C-alpha cells in the first residue's frame, strides 16, 4: 500500500508531525486497543491463523510507518480496517495459500441483476436460526464470497456505520446498503439450505 493510498483516508485533514514519543503514544493508545478486532477481521478474511497474524502485523507496521497521516481524535479503528482491507486485496490475496477467489465483479453484477431476488429465500424461520449453533452460522457465512462477507463483518460484528464502511471499502454509501442487503440474503439462503439438509425445518 502506498503512502498516497493511506493518505486518501485523511483527505482534507492536516498531515501531522509527531515526535517519536508522541507517535509511540498514539500507536499504543489509539491503535493497539483494536488488535483483537483486527485479528478477527483478518481471520474471517483468510481462514488461517498464521495468515491472519501476518496480515495484522503487516497492517500495524504500515500504520506506524504512515502515522503522520493519522489525525488524533479521528476514527482510528476505521483507518486501521481500511489499511488491513487494502493489504488483503492488494498483496495478500496474490500470495495467499487459498485457491483463487471468485471474481468479485462477476459476483456483484450477478447479485445486482433484477432477477436475482427470485432465488433468494425469505422464509428463514426465527426458530431455525435459534436452533443453530455459532459454528453452523460461521460456516455458512464463510461460504459466501469475501466481498459480501466483509460487509456483514464490518456492520454486524464490528458495528461500523454505512458511512464508515463506505470509506473503508472505497465504495459509495448506496452500494454499501445494497451490498449488505444482498449479503444478508445470501447468508439466509445458506442457512435455510443447511437447515433443510439437517432437518431443522421438520
Amino acid at each position: 500500500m502506498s503512502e498516497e493510498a493511506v493518505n486518501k483516508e485523511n483527505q482534507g485533514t492536516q498531515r501531522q508531525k509527531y515526535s517519536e514519543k508522541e507517535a509511540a503514544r498514539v500507536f499504543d493508545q489509539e491503535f493497539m486497543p483494536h488488535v483483537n478486532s483486527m485479528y478477527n477481521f483478518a481471520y474471517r478474511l483468510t481462514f488461517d491463523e498464521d495468515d491472519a497474524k501476518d496480515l495484522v502485523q503487516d497492517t500495524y507496521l504500515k500504520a506506524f510507518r504512515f502515522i503522520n497521516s493519522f489525525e488524533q481524535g479521528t476514527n482510528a479503528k476505521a483507518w486501521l480496517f481500511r489499511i488491513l482491507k487494502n493489504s488483503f486485496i492488494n498483496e495478500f490475496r496474490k500470495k495467499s495459500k487459498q485457491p483463487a477467489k471468485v471474481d468479485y465483479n462477476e459476483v456483484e453484477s450477478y447479485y445486482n441483476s433484477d432477477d436475482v431476488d427470485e432465488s433468494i429465500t425469505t422464509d428463514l424461520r426465527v426458530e431455525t436460526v435459534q436452533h443453530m449453533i455459532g459454528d453452523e452460522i460461521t460456516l455458512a457465512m464463510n461460504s459466501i464470497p469475501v466481498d459480501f462477507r466483509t460487509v456483514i463483518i464490518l456492520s454486524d460484528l464490528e458495528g461500523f456505520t454505512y458511512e464508515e464502511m463506505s470509506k473503508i471499502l472505497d465504495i459509495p454509501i448506496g452500494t454499501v446498503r445494497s451490498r449488505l442487503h444482498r449479503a444478508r440474503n445470501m447468508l439466509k439462503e445458506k442457512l435455510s439450505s443447511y437447515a433443510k439438509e439437517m432437518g431443522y425445518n421438520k
Partner: protein
Amino acid sequence: MSEFSDWFKNSFKECYCDRGNLVDEKRFSEIIQLVLDNEADEESRAIFEEKIRTCVKSNGNYEREKCVQETIKQKLCEHKQEIPEDLANTIKKSIGL
C-alpha cells in the same frame, strides 16, 4: 435529511398498494434493514413506525427480520477466534515500542 431520505420515500411508496396494503415484501425487507441498522433519518423512521403500528403484515415482517438478524449477529459475535497470546507484544516489539 440523510443520504437515504429519497430512497426511503420512493421505496416505501412502492411497497404498498393504493389501499395501503403491503404488496412488495422484498423491497420492504430493504427498508427494514435500513431501520435496524440505524441508517434511516428521523422522518423516515417515524413513517416506518407508524406503519408497523397499524399494519399487521408489515409488523410481522419487521419482527421476524429483527429477530433473525439479532440472533445471527449474537451467534456470530459469540463465535470469535481466539487471539494469539503474543500478537500484541510481537507487534510492539517489531516497531520498537
